């Protein structure tokens, strides 16, 4: 049986726009077990992205509790949340969001080099190894702006893995790719999940992508839909 990696209890998130308050998440309870690859699906506006942002510690919930590896994150400062994000989480975004003025290797190493203060030789080796793993070792010195869409997304996956995260949150990782490339990317994520026991939570509209995951979590109108 898998251990719980991330536990969300009764997560509520509302946004205030002037006098009007909109409740986007209406009490989410979620248990993400270690080593699983989960898909998060829901219609536009269902609260999928907001939940992903809260689970990714990018946004604080209005109410509820979040626990990562049995540690409550509710009352942590912004600085501590940044550290948690850096050490325990990895992110893959729909538009890859690489830094265009840096090489593929520097982009991969960035989340580790910034806190360490130096781009050490060891870090370069690790970044190169990850690039090799996503099939881009020959592009390590290419600027991000010189890579194709699929290559950029693979660099983004390597970047998400540089700090050996416990959980990788992927927001529509194949949403901007053609079918073949999307398939390659999903195969890559699956392989990493299996070989490294890295947990993935993938937000997607694509049923093909969702079908490759161990479980599908559906969110409807701010709540987890019963399976």
């Amino acid at each position, binding site marked *: 049986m898998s251990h719980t990696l991330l536990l969300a209890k009764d997560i509520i998130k509302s946004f205030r726009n002037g006098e009007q308050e909109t409740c986007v998440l209406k009490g989410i309870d979620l248990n993400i077990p270690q080593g699983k690859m989960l898909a998060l699906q829901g219609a536009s506006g269902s609260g999928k992205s907001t939940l992903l942002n809260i689970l990714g510690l990018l946004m604080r919930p209005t109410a509820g509790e979040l626990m990562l590896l049995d540690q409550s994150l509710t009352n942590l400062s*912004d600085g501590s949340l940044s550290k948690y994000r*850096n050490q325990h989480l990895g992110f893959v975004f729909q538009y890859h*969001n690489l830094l265009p003025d840096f090489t593929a290797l520097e982009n991969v190493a960035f989340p580790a080099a910034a806190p360490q203060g130096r*781009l050490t030789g060891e870090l370069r080796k690790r970044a190169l190894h990850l690039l090799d793993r996503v099939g881009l070792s020959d592009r390590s010195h290419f600027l991000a702006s010189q890579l194709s869409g699929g290559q950029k997304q693979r660099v983004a996956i390597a970047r998400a893995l540089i*700090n050996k995260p416990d959980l990788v949150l992927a927001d529509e990782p194949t949403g901007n790719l053609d079918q073949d490339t999307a398939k390659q990317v999903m195969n890559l994520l699956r392989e990493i999940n299996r070989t490294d026991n890295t947990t993935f939570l993938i937000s997607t509209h694509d049923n093909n992508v969702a079908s490759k995951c161990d479980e599908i979590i559906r969110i409807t109108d701010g709540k987890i839909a019963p399976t």
Partner: protein
Amino acid sequence: MPFSLLVSWRYITANSFQTLLLVLGVALSVVVFVFITALINGLSIFLTQETTSKIAHVELEPPNRIARVLIDDSRFVAQPVSTLQRKQIRNWQQVIDIAQFTPGVSAISPIVEGNGFLVRGEATRPVAIQGVEPSKVDAITNISAYIISGSAELTTGGLVIGADLATELGLLVGTPVLLKSERGAERLLPITGIFRVGLASLDQRVGFLSIRVARPLFELPDGITLLGLKLDDPAKAPAIATLLHNATQLKATAWQEKNKSLQNATEAQGRTGNFIQAFALLAIIISISSALLLSTYRRRAEIGIMRATGVSRQFVATVFILQGVFIGALGAMLGATAGYLLCVQLASITGPDGDAMLPIAPNEGGYALVITLTILGAALAAVLPARAASAVDPVEAIQQ
């Protein structure tokens, strides 16, 4: 290399044309700073040199006679003390011994100073006589360099006078003139030299005589009235004057005390320069700050990604501060070099008389100051953009 340094450098070299424009803008302000500083310092040096090259840097005189105040029960009575004695330095040889071993003293000239009149026919003009040793005629004022007729040779017993005084009395070299001293003594002396220093106080009123000739005219067979001193560094005159006063108990006056208006004028110039320098620095701060703020907005999404991956606010802020420092340092170096070359070029332009057209001092451009202030100013200018960058909300930035 620290990673923040690498990221900053990559950012400022990513858009090299924009960075070049920004660095040139900073450099231009630095050139203005250097030019103004070199000009004001040059002017101050020029005026100070012009003045100090023609006067004693320290003058040693007998102390002033102070009226002693006697108090009785009903009234004050002020009674002068020792006014029956001549003011003179009798043991001046001993004072010279002390002065010549004082560090920083380069020349000493014993002087018998006195007032009198030059009389030619019915024309009479007041004259301030300086009786000096013939070998030391150039010790205080390099009179030989300003001679326009005759020579500054005093051994023959002649009189060397200023050009304006000579013109007023119609005197030429070789013309005899009657000198009546304030002590009532008279002597007919030939004019042996005429000088034009350019200072009205010298050209209109001063005459140089051999000390041997001056002694009987002013009834000072042994003593002198004044010891004039030249220093290696005129700026040290107040300190050396204090030292000599303590050693001799004579009244020691530094040249700065007698030329307060010059000091006031150079200080006023300095203040004007400070304003221009402050505006140049302000221009640097505003240009760097606005450019980096624009960069912050342009790179919002990238900053958002950095923050999302757990990069700290401090790292983001450091990257932007370092960009400011890089731009400031590059602009300061470039501007200081260009400013120096400009000043050297301007200092080499001479007028028809061979003198420099601008009294600019290329070595006094305040280079260390401007480089330090520019880098500090640039770092300060980057604080606001750095704060803005570190405050970027990763969720908002990524969604853009």
